[in-house]
């Protein structure tokens, strides 16, 4: 971060999707709508959740991983991806 720029709060992004073996009727409904709209080239839709967390100070990867895996996602049915700020 350069002096004189806006202070930016580190953002951590967490993406949650249903595990491949769990059927996703909402994604299938979207796929059906796409077909009706003439977008026949889309063969599958999986719907998920996208979380943006603003973190005070330096993000603690272990803590964020725990948040993602125990609250934001249910590991019984969902996979989770944690994206930490790169700079």
């Amino acid at each position, binding site marked *: 971060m350069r002096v004189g720029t806006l202070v930016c709060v580190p953002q951590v992004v967490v993406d949650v999707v*249903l595990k491949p*073996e*769990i*059927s996703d*009727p*909402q994604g299938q*409904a979207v796929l059906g709508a796409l077909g009706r709209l003439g977008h026949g080239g889309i063969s599958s839709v999986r719907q998920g959740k996208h979380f943006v967390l603003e973190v005070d100070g330096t993000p603690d990867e272990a803590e964020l991983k725990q948040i993602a895996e125990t*609250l*934001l996602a*249910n590991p*019984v*049915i969902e996979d989770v991806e944690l994206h930490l700020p790169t700079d």
Partner: protein
Amino acid sequence: MRIGVLTFPGSLDDVDAARAVRLAGGEPVALWHADHDLKDVDAVILPGGFSYGDYLRAGAIAARAPLMREVVDRAHGGMPVLGICNGFQVLCEAGLLPGALTRNSHLHFRNRDQALRIERADTAWTASYAAGQEIVVPVKNGEGRYVAADADLDRLEGEGRVAVRYVGGNPNGSARDIAGVTSENGRVVGLMPHPEHAVEALTGPSTDGLGFFTSVLKAVVNA
């Protein structure tokens, strides 16, 4: 016999659950999610509804409510806990029961009278029934599809952990027609259908649901 009924923001069926406890001969005790006081209850019911508006996942935020810490601790010590509908979702999210409840396969909210088979008549909440007995109680949910990994489903079946099964049609696409499951020790039971709505001829399709609430009174006496 003091049976707690835990109310979260968005609970709907806590009053019916308390009424079912009273009709069964127990003393219902109102519990509030934000307290740390179980008020010396002998068992706890987590009622149906839409706690926290089903935000994040149905039951996910309620499962982390302050009083749930005490409920989980006491459940591990053998206190009977029954989760009905949203309460079942809370128990799965809290890790007291295996599996998860997801959006119904047909995406519709399903509200109807539902036939069920009692698979386990030796849990704290089903001992008033006979194994194999069929009952009819209302079912009403949008996220009631029970799922777990195939290996986990096989294990649950092998251990006899399926407490209640849908018969005469599966309302939500639940794996293996599972309507409710039990903990290993039979003290914690969760199910999507609503026995508390079938305790009086005037308001329910039957009085078949009353057995859940009479069962726990015996379970607490025998504990």
